[in-house]
């Protein structure tokens, strides 16, 4: 039994780490804000869940399990909400998505003091 738990936990952790890394890569390489947010928002939720589940399988007692559950639930709520709010706010404040390559110049000029 233990060996299954350990293996399962490792598997989950591995998947989580991979997702994490891919999300990070997306954050770094994607061209504009919305795509970057997409990369982060999608992977982050899943990666966090994976890693937390991996840890849950290792947890020694009930209290720890409970706390991990709390964290998981909170991330599941918070992460998409935050992403949504962020995108919403960005759109409302006239940040234009970069849809095609024609207007490739900076969509927002940094403020020059």
């Amino acid at each position, binding site marked *: 039994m233990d060996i299954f738990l350990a293996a399962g*936990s*490792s598997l989950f*952790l*591995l998947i*989580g*780490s*991979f997702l*994490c*890394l891919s*999300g*990070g*890569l997306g*954050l*770094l390489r994607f061209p504009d*804000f919305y795509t*970057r*947010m997409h990369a*982060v928002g999608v992977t*982050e939720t899943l*990666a*966090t869940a994976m*890693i*937390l589940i*991996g*840890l849950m399988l*290792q*947890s*020694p007692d009930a209290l*720890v399990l409970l*706390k*991990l559950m*709390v*964290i998981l639930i*909170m*991330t599941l709520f*918070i*992460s998409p*909400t*935050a992403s949504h*709010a*962020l995108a919403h*706010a*960005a759109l*409302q*404040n*006239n*940040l234009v998505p970069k849809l095609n390559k024609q207007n490739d110049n*900076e*969509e*927002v*000029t*940094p*403020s020059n003091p």
Partner: protein
Amino acid sequence: MLIAAILAVFIVMVIAIVRGFMGPTLYDRILAVNMFGTKTVLLISLLGFMMGRPEFLDIAIVYALINFISVVGVLRYSDSSVFKHHNKQK
């Protein structure tokens, strides 16, 4: 395995810092901070397990919370004229 996961999270944290530094828009920075916060939560829980003291999870919960609240705070106050001004220069 834990170590590998910690390493992965750590790398992503560095990436988030880079993005937070580069900008270019306000929202990129918020995104980076948000992501950084989530990853810190993960890092702390992983570290707690690695050191064999899972009591650390309390801190992770606080981090998740604080992260959420700072994002809300940023968004709530980013509708003020100070921020709009920046974006309307275009």
